[in-house]
């Protein structure tokens, strides 16, 4: 087996293993895995509507994954994507509802507002890390709570109710065209924004001077310093860019899916899943698309399992977790494949 074959085989085998173990769990809890998996399949690819909803779900995952991956490439662990996403969501919802502007200005304005809000939320841990060496993991975790409760308070202050006003049509990512071709799903233009950002991250990292510096600092801070790079500037910059991606992930929900932000009882989870998305995608832009597709599909498609196969949502969560678990442990499968390979070669 060549390396390329192994690279393709690893995720496939991982998913199959996850499905098998998930099946065992279902058999033991008295549910029929075949019906359940058919329901899962239908939930993801069953019809145009399902596909539309799945893609819609993938968009924020791509952006959250990019946020984590970008910081990671610069040597930073951004756990604060969740908080940055929430402030981005609020910023987009606020700008979307508070202004009356032509679409050509209003929509970009709302998107930029979301990115800036996320960037600001990333700036704080970035500065603390650069200036005082405070570990970014601690600060970003705490910034998540601050974001959650500050935003909830702001919703009440701004709108006087438990949710923000609905955004104006001029700020919306909704698309009649996309909706029509997917049997009236809520699919919106957000996926294009997400894919564009994949391109932006690739360009930034692989084509620009800034990207060269960010990667250098991420790999070896000391050598970068010896080479005269401003390590602290790069730390702040990577947190800001990472935060901007996360903020845009929030705008997907504000301008596309919901059109408003309602009081949040807890975290959305998308930001935290972004960590897994980034790691599954080996922190590369293209890899993030793969990771986000897996997450988005399972998250949305699994919603069909209780309806169609009667599997309770708790079991569904376990099965999703198992599949992701096996994909994430692809390393083990790789080791086994290599060993099998070696034995064959020896014979």
């Amino acid at each position, binding site marked *: 087996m060549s390396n390329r074959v192994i690279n393709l085989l690893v995720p496939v085998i991982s998913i199959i293993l996850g499905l098998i173990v998930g099946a065992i769990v279902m058999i033991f809890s008295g549910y029929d895995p075949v019906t359940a998996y058919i329901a899962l399949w239908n939930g993801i690819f069953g019809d145009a509507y399902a596909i539309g909803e799945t893609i819609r779900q993938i968009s924020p995952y791509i952006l959250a994954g990019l946020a984590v991956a970008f910081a990671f490439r610069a040597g930073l662990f951004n756990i604060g994507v969740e908080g940055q996403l929430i402030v981005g969501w609020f910023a987009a919802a606020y700008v979307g509802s508070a202004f009356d502007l032509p679409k050509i200005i209003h929509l970009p304005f709302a998107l930029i507002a979301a990115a800036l809000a996320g960037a600001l939320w990333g700036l704080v841990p970035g500065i603390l890390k650069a200036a005082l060496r405070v570990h970014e993991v601690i600060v970003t975790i705490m910034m998540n709570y601050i974001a959650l409760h500050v935003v909830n308070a702001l919703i009440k202050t701004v709108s006087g109710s438990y949710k923000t006003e609905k955004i104006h049509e001029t700020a919306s990512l909704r698309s009649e065209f996309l909706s029509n071709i997917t049997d009236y799903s809520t699919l919106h233009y957000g996926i294009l924004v997400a894919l564009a950002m994949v391109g932006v991250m690739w360009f930034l990292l692989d*084509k620009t001077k800034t990207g060269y510096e960010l990667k250098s600092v991420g790999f*070896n801070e000391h050598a970068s310093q*010896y080479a005269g790079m401003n390590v602290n500037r790069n730390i702040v910059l990577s947190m800001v860019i990472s935060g901007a991606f996360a903020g845009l992930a929030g705008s997907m929900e504000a301008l596309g899916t919901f059109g408003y932000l309602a009081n949040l009882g807890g975290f959305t989870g998308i930001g935290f899943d972004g960590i897994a998305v980034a790691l599954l995608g080996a922190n590369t832009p293209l890899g993030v698309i793969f990771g986000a597709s897996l997450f988005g599909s399972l998250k949305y498609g699994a919603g069909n399992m209780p309806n169609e196969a009667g599997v309770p949502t708790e079991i569904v969560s376990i099965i999703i977790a198992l599949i992701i678990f096996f994909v994430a442990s692809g390393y083990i499968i790789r080791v086994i494949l290599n060993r099998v390979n070696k034995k064959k070669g020896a014979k």
Partner: protein
Amino acid sequence: MEYVIEMLDIRKEFGNFVANDNITLQLKKGEIHALLGENGAGKSTLMNVLFGLYQPEGGEIRVRGEKVAISNPNIANNLGIGMVHQHFMLVENLTVTENIILGNEPKKMGIINIQDAAKKVAEISKLYGLNVDPYAKIADISVGMQQRVEILKTLYRGAEILIFDEPTASLTPQEIDELFIIMKKLIEENKSIILITHKLQEIMDVTDRVTVIRKGQGIGTVITSETNPEELATLMVGRQVIFKTEKGPAFPADEVLHIENLVVEDYRGVSKVKGLNLSVRKGEIVGIAGIDGNGQSELIEAITGLRKVKEGKISINGKDITGKRPREITEIGLGHIPQDRHKHGLVLEFSVGYNAALQSYYHEPYSKKGIMNYKVVSEKAKKIIDTYDVRTQGEHEPARALSGGNQQKLIIGREVERDPDLLIAALPTRGLDVGAIEFIHKRLIEQRDNGKAVLLISFELDEVMNVSDRIAVIYDGQIVDTVNPSETTEQELGLLMAGHQKSEMIVVGDEVVLKEGEDPNVE
């Protein structure tokens, strides 16, 4: 005479790579046997096989005539094989005795009996003339003394066969002499020694026989008294090696680097450079000789802008660079070969090409308006690979995959290609083999001949004496003396490095020694 260890036709493979290709090494009882080879020749692999860390694919090991299977280091220990590592495995905050018994503590009802252990340590120390205080803290004793603790550790565990891995790398000339005396004492007490080294003079001085390996293959075993350094080098490298670095006279011109009353503190706020003065001119190589820890690192970091200057002034070409950022200083005309190439010299995960651009990526044509031009970077990297003989699969290979010598050549190529007026080379040949050392020395001299200033910092006296045009001796954060390499000796330098004044020394025959009443061990 009987053999205590026989490694016969040892073969060790890693995948398709043969690290040891049927190598034979036979150690006689009571001899000092050198294992000589370039870096990557397979010395460590062979010793790791003997130590039970690797299992050989072929061949057999006999200890005192009996065939043995050494499947882990404990078996090696029980067979009386002990290793004195190059990088000491000591806990700084513990005492000598505590370090020696670590992992093998003599316990009585769960309580360690430190007194008995210390007594035993003292006895062994006395028997072999090691002169180690069992209750001294490791952090408080010199490097040479720490090495003796390592020796004691193996003896305490009953080692009959001692393997010394590059033992002289961090010692002063005096400490090296003392080490050799200890090794001879060990032989008198019926121990046997394998000395891993690539320093030819040491082999000539102290060993009985030499086994040479090259690129994983056993070249043969020769009797030391019947060979000479030139022959050994040829055996090791596979071609003729020029030893005495060839260089013409220096023609120093204008001053490039000027340092005045420099004071630099380390990260704890302790002054490490204490009012240092130094000057390096165009067309000369100034070597800084000194024992590790006398302020060399802080001096380099101050010149390169990586560490704050507390007091004093540094200028390059008449421009004051005190307090400037590293990049500003680089732009004024400084090239720097850092002492730790893995930590400071390279981004190991980056490709060879990316590393080649590490100091120039922000200039045109490598980048333009913030966009990198990796095509130009690759071309530059190819040029460095060719000109500086960097052996690599290509500019896309990660720097991590290169051998130490080739990594160093890459760094030197990168720095020299920028054509700096002042080149700082800190331990540029540490851990490299003679072939690479020869190459690097040539390049430094070439820089000098092109009218550049070179500042060489090294712990190897050979290197400082061979390459420099002037030697500045650093001790306790100051340049205590400046000598001409052709007018000094290793002993004189060694004494200066240990903090003695020239006025304390006298010449007796060919030797420079301290006058009566001066203790050579004063630190």
